[in-house]
């Protein structure tokens, strides 16, 4: 009844569950079983389970791809504005997309389960596959919502590579998330732990996709979910280590730094800042709206820098030093400062590229300049000592002051750019309105 009342789910069900498809799936399934059982040997039954596994994987990726295209196809087809104007809540739209765009893959899974359980397919195996499917599909919907911002800026053809790539990334993330807790070969423990891990991961892509859906529907949002996500990832990686001897405050700091910086870089490259919107909000001092619009990369950069620096300071004053292989406190601060420098470089590049143009080329050039061209020129001209100002591999030897010159330069450039923008048309428009 709930599904029937969801406009999106009904639309997908009409499109995906055609009479031919409803008919052909069980027929093919039965034919495969008949072929497998024709010999009546256990070997054939094992072959059947392998076929079923392959079928489940196929269904999982089919569903994930459907979810991946669920929103971007609407933008490309010109129907997304109607969805945005509809009366559906963000949750209703989200789960309509999630379960609707994947409805045919679920139909396939249903017949796979029905036909394979009598032949000894373990329940825990099925449960894990279903959990993986749900997570992958939620990631697919998340990528689809995330790509909408870019869809408005580039042609659909250019999006094809990114969309296909996002499907692969979805799959890899699911597998990585599922396997991260498992280090031994005990198969029963692997299934159980993986199921727990997947269930822990499942709500996050859905929560983030919900946030993006709210933005699309022009509803108010806050970036709290991103803060919670950083905390969750840190806990997710640290908890299994908590009882071991190698775990320490320093190890927790390492994990937090790596998680926060990884998200900063990832989202910085993939999420285009709506700089005009943010500058408008700063200018009119609408702090509540600004807080609701803070992009992920900005927030995570702030979180990573603040959390890591404060914690590193606490550790260094408490006298804790590196007992196990890993980073020192100084190395972590150096990494954070290099990360902050790169984040500001991203902001500067995105502020310098027109809103309707893509920033991939400029970003690639900017980072090539810092990481390749300048160090190479320094090397060729005999100034090898200049390279650590750009980057340093040997972090234990790295000094905290090394990132500071480039950080200062990029900070200055960014402030100059912000000042120029604020001085231009924006201030003129506000003056015009104020005068009237």
């Amino acid at each position, binding site marked *: 009844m709930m599904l029937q009342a969801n406009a999106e789910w009904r639309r997908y069900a009409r499109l995906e569950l055609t009479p031919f498809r409803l008919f052909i799936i069980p027929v093919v399934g039965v034919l495969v079983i008949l072929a497998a059982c024709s010999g009546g040997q256990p070997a054939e039954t094992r072959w059947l389970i392998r076929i079923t596994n392959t079928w489940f994987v196929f269904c999982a990726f089919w569903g994930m791809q459907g979810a991946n295209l669920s929103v971007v196809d609407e933008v490309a087809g*010109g*129907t997304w504005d109607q969805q945005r104007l509809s*009366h559906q809540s963000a949750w209703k739209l989200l789960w309509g997309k999630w379960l609707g765009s994947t409805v045919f893959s679920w139909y396939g899974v249903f017949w796979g389960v029905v036909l394979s359980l009598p032949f000894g397919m373990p329940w825990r195996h099925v449960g894990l596959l279903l959990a993986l499917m749900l997570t992958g599909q939620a990631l697919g919907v998340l990528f689809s919502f995330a790509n909408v911002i870019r869809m408005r800026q580039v042609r659909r053809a250019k999006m094809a590579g990114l969309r296909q790539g996002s499907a692969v990334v979805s799959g890899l993330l699911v597998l990585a998330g599922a396997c991260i807790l498992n280090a031994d070969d005990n198969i029963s423990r692997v299934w159980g732990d993986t199921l727990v891990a997947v269930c822990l991961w499942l709500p996050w892509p859905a929560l983030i996709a919900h946030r993006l859906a709210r933005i699309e529907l022009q509803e108010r949002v806050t970036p709290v979910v991103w803060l919670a996500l950083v905390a969750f990832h840190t806990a997710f990686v640290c908890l299994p280590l908590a009882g071991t001897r190698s775990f320490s405050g320093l190890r927790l700091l390492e994990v937090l730094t790596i998680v926060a910086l990884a998200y900063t870089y990832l989202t910085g490259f993939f999420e285009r800042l709506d700089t005009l919107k943010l500058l408008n909000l700063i200018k009119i001092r609408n702090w509540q709206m600004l807080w609701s619009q803070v992009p992920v990369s900005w927030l995570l950069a702030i979180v990573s820098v603040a959390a890591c620096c404060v914690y590193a300071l606490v550790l260094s004053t408490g006298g804790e030093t590196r007992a196990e292989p890993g980073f020192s406190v100084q190395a972590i601060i150096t990494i954070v400062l290099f990360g902050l420098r790169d984040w500001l470089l991203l902001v500067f590049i995105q502020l310098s590229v027109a809103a309707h143009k893509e920033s991939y080329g400029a970003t690639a050039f900017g980072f090539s300049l810092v990481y390749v061209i300048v160090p190479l020129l320094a090397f060729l001209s005999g100034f090898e000592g200049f390279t650590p100002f750009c980057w340093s591999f040997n972090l234990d030897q790295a000094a905290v002051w090394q990132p500071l010159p480039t950080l200062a330069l990029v900070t200055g450039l960014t402030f100059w750019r912000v000042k120029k923008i604020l001085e231009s048309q*924006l201030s003129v*428009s506000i003056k*015009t309105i104020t005068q009237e």
Partner: protein
Amino acid sequence: MGSILEVRHLTVDMPGKRVLDNVSFGLDRGTITALVGPNGAGKSTLMRCIVALDPIWHGTVTLEGVNVSETPRAMHRQVGYLADDFGLYDELSVAHCLEHVGLARGLSPEAIQTRLQVVVRETQLAELLPHRAGVLSKGQRQRVGLALALLHDPILLVLDEPATGLDPEARQLLGECLNALRQAGKTILVSSHILAELEQYATHMLLLDAGRLKTFVPVGSQNAVVRCRLILRVSGGQETGGRFLATQPGVQELKATPEGFLFDWLAPETELTALLEACLVAKVPVIGLERVQERMEQVYLQQVAR
């Protein structure tokens, strides 16, 4: 009639370009306003801001007193919007497309059926209901788009270039449909480049140029105060006629021509009878009164050329 939609000091900036510059106007209930202007004038941006699809940072848009930027979702419930590049779910039938949008718009199944009957009649879609949206012609798709925008019974209808690509018959049909909707009390904002077609149904013209509001005037409907160009044909008596017409209220930009007098009429068309009667009483030798066509185009060209 009170203003149903108020736009005040609306300004939209993009890096390097001001798309809308301090635009202010109000739309009365039961009017059709033609939004015209050259390419890149900001017509689509204005429409998207009004229907709360694009955020508003400077200025306000209020629909029946409710601020759109504060409650965009409330605006979504009250407005029907047809984008210039709107799409349909090509694999669904027209009936299923309408049902989907009705459900997404929060209508109950009973309400959907009731509204379907109304919009199918208004947009003359009955024979198209079983067809797949993907096989429809451009004109038929526009009618389906219009039906989708009307399904939830909005008070304001915003149509971005609905006549583009339509043949004359389909344009005629669209005009009839919009006139019927206006008579039913809908307020309509419609953009188009085909001024002659807009003239058939528009009650007001709103001209944008380079993001600025150049003019917002009432045009040729029967009962509204209109600006229309007329020629009063006379057989002699030029001097008497000229003096008499110059004193009449509603007569502006009076010019004597070999055929008679050319002037702008700025009053309800119904008052033209009184003008003719007054001419006869004043012994002006009237042999005919004719409307000079293309008045919207003239206004447009005059304003854009300034």
